[in-house]
């Protein structure tokens, strides 16, 4: 019989590795099993084209919790994030809008469209900072259980209640608006010009199957703003070596604390006995045993895939089937021979180092959503472009570049069915390239290699159900004590000894590390493994 571990972590995504590192640091013997040949899950760097290292899926980082970096000593193991200073929204009509960390510079830029909007920015930031402060209290602790009278839960609720009251009435009211409004409506409470509102509103739709005018998207906006707590735009950054660099730092930290990591070790199923998880069986037939199994895979894949519906309570299966994945985004990564200039601002090289957002108007974004609603990819999509090689030249040969494009919408559920994605993949890639070509002519001719990832590809390659980048939509009804299923929001599952730690658990979303950290801390507290 194989060696028995204190903990087995299924999946070497960044959350799984964070979880493993915390458990190993607490003295447990930990085994991490990763299906692919590379670690990182969606935070992964791969040499897709010779000499070019792509952040294949997740491409920027902002939310990663600083205390995790400290506690796991990640800087020592190679964690390095280089801040992004600007967001540029090119235009076909004028010189476009760039927003910078320097607020007077941004004020001058925005003034060209609206003097009012330029000056009201500090008031908006103030409100978002105040609300983010509360939200931080939410994401850094396990979700409160509002149905429980357990003293610990009451204490947690009391802490949150105190923080909430501390916001003061104005912010409380604003919080209610944030929870119910659309990203556009919310932003329009401050800003009048859509040239500013459009690029700001896209933060509200990233990874959701919603439009910028759909109610509830204002909250997602905040989720992306929280990273700005430590200082304006600057807190979005590039991970050195691609986002896989963060995963590798987590892996090295976990190994330093004694964890064992195996790649090309895909778990076929979780072995259960009398409603308890006792081990895992790999695709190659190997079996490993442990009294504590933690899955970094998404909830559906973990429970319906690796455990099996027949071993689960009926109501749980029903709720899990209701948990929405419906991936809505794709990724186009390109190796470029040279950089083409944006026609609207040909001489500004600084803007290329930052974030470049194709979001010219609110209607543009809504029309992109219209296509998706009826089962097609957006012919004119919202695209978030970064050129990481301008900041981290180690990713490509000298003088060559990588262009990473996050694209929305690309609905997993095509009208013809998700299986038809392979037939449409290149047409989707063409739509993206053609759109950017309008703003930056010459792009097409400079492409050495193009990698197109549709949600179907993301599901097949990385293992995210329906290609949802957050392991389940970040919509309000799928957050906190309902993520992924009410009653199982504290990293537990109906199967005893089986836990979850991925983005599908609270707080979810982005390279944040919280799921892994909070799951590990919960396990250590609940169960003296």
């Amino acid at each position, binding site marked *: 019989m194989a060696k028995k571990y204190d903990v087995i972590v299924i999946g070497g995504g960044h959350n799984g590795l964070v979880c493993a590192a915390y458990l190993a640091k607490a003295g447990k013997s930990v085994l991490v099993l990763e299906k692919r040949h590379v670690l990182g899950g969606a935070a992964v760097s791969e040499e897709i084209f010779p000499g070019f290292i792509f952040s294949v899926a997740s491409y920027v980082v902002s939310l990663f919790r600083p205390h995790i970096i400290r506690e796991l000593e990640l800087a020592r193991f190679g964690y390095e994030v280089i801040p992004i200073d600007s967001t540029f929204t090119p235009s076909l009509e004028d010189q476009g809008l760039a927003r910078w960390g320097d607020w007077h510079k941004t*004020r001058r830029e925005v003034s060209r469209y609206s003097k009012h909007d330029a000056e*009201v920015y500090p008031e908006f930031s103030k409100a978002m900072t105040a609300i983010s402060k509360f939200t931080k209290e939410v994401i850094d602790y396990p979700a409160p259980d509002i149905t429980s009278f357990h003293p610990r839960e009451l204490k947690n609720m009391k802490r949150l209640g105190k923080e909430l009251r501390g916001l003061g009435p104005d912010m409380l009211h604003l919080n209610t608006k944030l929870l119910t409004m659309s990203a556009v409506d919310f932003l329009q409470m401050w800003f009048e010009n859509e040239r500013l509102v459009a690029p700001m509103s896209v933060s509200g739709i990233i990874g959701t199957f919603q439009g910028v005018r759909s109610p509830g998207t204002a909250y997602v906006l905040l989720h992306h703003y929280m990273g700005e707590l430590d200082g304006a735009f600057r807190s979005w950054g590039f991970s050195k070596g691609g986002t896989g660099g963060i995963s590798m730092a987590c892996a090295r930290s976990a190994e330093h604390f004694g964890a064992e990591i195996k790649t090309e070790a895909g778990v076929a199923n979780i072995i259960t006995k009398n409603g308890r998880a006792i081990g895992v069986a790999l695709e190659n037939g190997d079996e490993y045993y442990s009294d504590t199994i933690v899955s970094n895979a998404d909830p559906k894949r973990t429970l319906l895939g690796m455990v099996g519906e027949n071993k689960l309570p009926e109501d749980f299966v029903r709720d899990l089937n209701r948990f929405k994945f419906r991936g809505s985004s794709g990724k186009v990564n390109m190796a470029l021979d040279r950089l083409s200039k944006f026609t609207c601002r040909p001489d500004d090289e600084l803007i290329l180092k930052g974030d470049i957002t194709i979001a010219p108007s609110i209607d543009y974004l809504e029309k992109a959503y219209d296509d998706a609603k009826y089962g097609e990819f957006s012919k004119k999509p919202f695209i978030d472009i970064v050129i990481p090689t301008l900041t981290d030249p180690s990713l490509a040969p000298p003088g060559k570049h990588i262009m990473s494009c996050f694209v929305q919408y690309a609905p997993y559920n095509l009208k013809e069915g998700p299986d038809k994605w392979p037939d449409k993949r290149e047409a989707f890639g063409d739509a993206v390239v053609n759109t950017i070509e309008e703003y930056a002519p010459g792009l097409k001719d400079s492409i050495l290699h193009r990698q197109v990832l549709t949600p179907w590809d993301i599901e097949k390659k990385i293992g995210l159900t329906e290609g949802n980048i957050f392991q389940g939509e970040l919509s309000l009804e799928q957050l906190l004590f309902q993520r992924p299923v009410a009653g199982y929001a504290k990293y537990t599952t109906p199967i005893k000894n089986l836990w979850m730690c991925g983005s599908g658990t609270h707080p979810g979303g982005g390279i944040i590390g919280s799921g892994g950290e909070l799951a590990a801390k919960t396990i250590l507290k609940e169960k003296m493994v």
Partner: protein
Amino acid sequence: MPIGTPFHERTSNLCTSMRWKEWSGYYAVCSYNSLHEPEYFAFRHSAGLLDVTPLFKYSVKGKDAEKFLSRVMVKNIAKLKVGRVSYLCWCNDEGKVVDDGTCMRLDEDVFFVTSADPCYYWFKRFTRGYDVEIEDATDVICGLALQGPTSRDILKQVIDIDMDTLKFFGVRDANIENIPVYISRTGYTGDLGYEIWTENKNALQLWDTLMGAGRNYDIQPAGLDALDITRVESGLILKGADYYNAQHVLIEDRMSTPYELGLGWTVNLDRVPFMGQAALKKEKQEGSLWATVGLDINWPELEAIYNNYGLPPEVCSSAWRQSIPIYDFDNPRVQIGYATSGTWSPTLKKNIALATIQKRYDKSGSKIKFEVTVEHARHLVSAIVNKPQFFDPERKKSNPGLEKAKTNG
């Protein structure tokens, strides 16, 4: 990245120290030479020329401009006569100060407002129902402050108006050589001085004309370091140092009311409704919690502390703006406020500060304890509470030309 003002071509040539800072998105000179003292003494003994372009500037025009400004400002603008300037502040509806600045009445329906923060969006918020037009002139109008005892004599040589009749806080349109300007007898040095506004295109000619006319009057280009000393000596508060824009801060403790800032005299309470009126009335009735005072920090005590270390007393030669705690005199463990900026006054030979203090301690002449750090250790010295204004020369408001004419007549 800041940009240069229309005077940049001149100021950058003269700024041999390469000491610049950012002021509202513009490059601004800290001091032209490595030492700022000569520039300070120019302000106090001859004349200093300071680029004040980065101030935010608004032209407010229209039939209802007076009514509109009276609604937004704490002061009743209806009482401001044409050709007069008012120093004032404006509040939000909680009576917390948003910004301070000057308001000039250039004509019945034409006003010019300066502010420290961008306030176009704020003013614009309240224009509905008023026949008023607000134009942000920040990027089209530039400004120079000519401050100091010889400033009037300098201007007399090149201006086409009778400088003797331009009284303290008066404003006039005039021509300096051929350049059309607005000139106001205002400034941030607390001395005799003027501020001159013109269109950007005239900037360099205006600079050259004034520098030329000032040659025989020891005119010197002066930077913000020198200005900072003069404004502390004169008890003029600074947004971002002594108080913050209420719309930009997260907690109420960081907000201030006009009364707390010593600007109660700018408030005209009993009149048609204006922003913050109800809250200010309530505060006036119930009393304020805080006050802004000047502190005269005891020099012999400081000297004695240095002496214990075998050192002569050391003070920073430039003004400072970090927060320093102040304590109850009899019970130095009780913090009663904080100093927000201060300086060694080269003219008064005093170590002075501006401070926010609990109202009950604000009586002039009373004593408090002030924290000083000497040789890396904290000590307390006593300080005497004073009105914020330590330096107020007669020349600031005097009109010798007029008085002479009167005597002769």
